[in-house]
């Protein structure tokens, strides 16, 4: 644990990103437990109050506390992005490994599938399906994952194709190790740095996509809240009710900056030449 803290502290980007994301996660997870307001409780007599001591981030059109909604929305937005990224990354790793190791016609088919999937206008298809009335958080996660694994698969395939020709892999084959061990102990750890960095950057992309879908009213549905849903509630009068959109927007930007900083930092620390110096 101490070593992890030391490593995080030794890279400025990672340090700043970890602090930012740490604060957002703690805020999202513990906030609703401490807040006197429920994210969905309406109180029309307190509607559209600007920030004050009793409502630090103001209230929305239904008198719901914006702070409570942002804290709850953080759980939804981050949860969707993290789960979709996990599914996409695991799918990408499996398909990339199969493509690189099996090769031949299977490799060609999988890579053409990647080309086709990359050619789809993903936001349009997600909007189309969800707009047909099938909106649910599970479906959003599934769609985000289905349209996000391809970059990871390509990265894994190309990295594995390079690494498997390295002499240290030839040496591992020469000592008689099984193929499974060579893949998981000798090749994959050397690809993990790139995968982790890409995954972290994918999280911020998916936060943005989820917020966009919700902003268009097709994502997380009221009374549930995500940061994108809250953002859209302020668009009726963006100047007069600025606090609704501005604070949720700040959280979206902060989360994206935080994950990008972590991605940059991880790129450094996952290089063994770096970890050795810390």
């Amino acid at each position, binding site marked *: 644990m101490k070593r992890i803290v030391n490593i995080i502290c030794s890279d400025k980007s990672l340090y700043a990103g970890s602090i930012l994301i740490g604060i957002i996660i703690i805020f999202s997870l513990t906030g609703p437990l401490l807040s006197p307001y429920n994210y969905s409780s309406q109180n029309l007599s307190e509607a559209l109050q600007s920030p004050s001591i009793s409502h630090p981030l103001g209230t929305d059109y239904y008198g719901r506390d914006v702070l409570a909604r942002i804290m709850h929305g953080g759980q939804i937005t981050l949860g969707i992005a993290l789960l979709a990224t996990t599914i996409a990354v695991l799918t990408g790793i499996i398909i990339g490994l199969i493509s690189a190791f099996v090769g031949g016609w299977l490799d060609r088919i999988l890579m053409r599938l990647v080309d086709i999937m990359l050619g789809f206008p993903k936001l349009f298809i997600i909007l189309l399906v969800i707009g047909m009335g099938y909106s649910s958080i599970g479906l959003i996660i599934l769609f985000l994952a289905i349209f996000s694994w391809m970059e990871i698969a390509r990265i894994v395939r190309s990295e594995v194709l390079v690494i498997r020709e390295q*002499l*240290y892999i030839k040496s*591992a084959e020469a*000592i*008689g190790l099984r193929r499974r061990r060579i893949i998981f102990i000798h090749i994959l*750890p050397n690809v993990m740095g790139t995968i982790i960095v890409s995954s972290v950057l994918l999280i911020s992309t998916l936060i943005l996509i989820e917020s966009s879908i919700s902003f268009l009213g097709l994502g997380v549905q009221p009374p549930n809240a995500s940061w994108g849903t809250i953002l859209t509630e302020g668009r009726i009068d963006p100047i007069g009710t600025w606090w609704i959109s501005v604070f949720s927007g700040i959280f979206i930007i902060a989360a994206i900056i935080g994950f990008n900083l972590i991605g940059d930092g991880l790129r450094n620390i996952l290089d063994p030449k770096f970890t*050795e110096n810390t």
Partner: protein
Amino acid sequence: MQAGTTASKTLLQIQDLRIVYQQKNTFFTADQTVHAVNGVSFSIRQGESFAIVGRSGCGKTSIAMSALGFVKPSAGAISFMGENIWQLNRKDLRQLRPLIQPVFQDYGNSLNPRMTVNKIITEALRTQPNDRTQSDAVIQLLDSVGLDSGIRLRFPHQLSGGQKQRINIARALALNPKLLILDEPVSSQDLSAGVKLIELLNSLKQTYELSYLLISHNLSTVRLLSDRIAIMKDGVFIERGPAETLLQHPSDNYTKELIDASNLTNLSKTEQA
């Protein structure tokens, strides 16, 4: 004269080996066929050192990679201890492989950059039945190649070129091999480090009853390590024989050129030292 030439059992036998590389055409270029090895035959007996010497691109590394099971021959046979390695199934080949170990020319790239020295050698040890603890075995192997046990926790980028080369040798020794394939073992070393490494290889040969297939472009290196030498040019052996005889009485002009080139290289290295 090297010791160990009296052993009679044939370890490696290569018969009429041919290796052809096909380069598929692109939009701008036609198909290309490169004949890297054109009918090479030789054998190595137990305890013997056989060297293949030639300039870059003559096909010597292709022979080594084929003997290791990495490059499939276009024709010919490679037998190790009586088994044709290219007719073995994957499981049998995996069981045979520890007996033929490579020490690659690019010794830095031969070590996994994410593994410590301890882990690199332990990976080899785990494929072997061993009555010692792995930690003791690693220390003993490091000692046998002249390295201090304190080096165990270092990563490859923290090692010098000579240390990396010795780790490669230690890993190979962990498998109790019969044959070491040494690809340009001292090409990147300065003269004094090169001499020390040659002394180490000669000593290990005695201790572990090893045979060597030595690949080099430098005759002065192989002179100190080999019992027999074959001179290779354009995929074929143009001259071969016992090391001392061939070096003192070369019959081919190409061999004479290589001997002259080796003398110049030595002179240059001596001046640098």
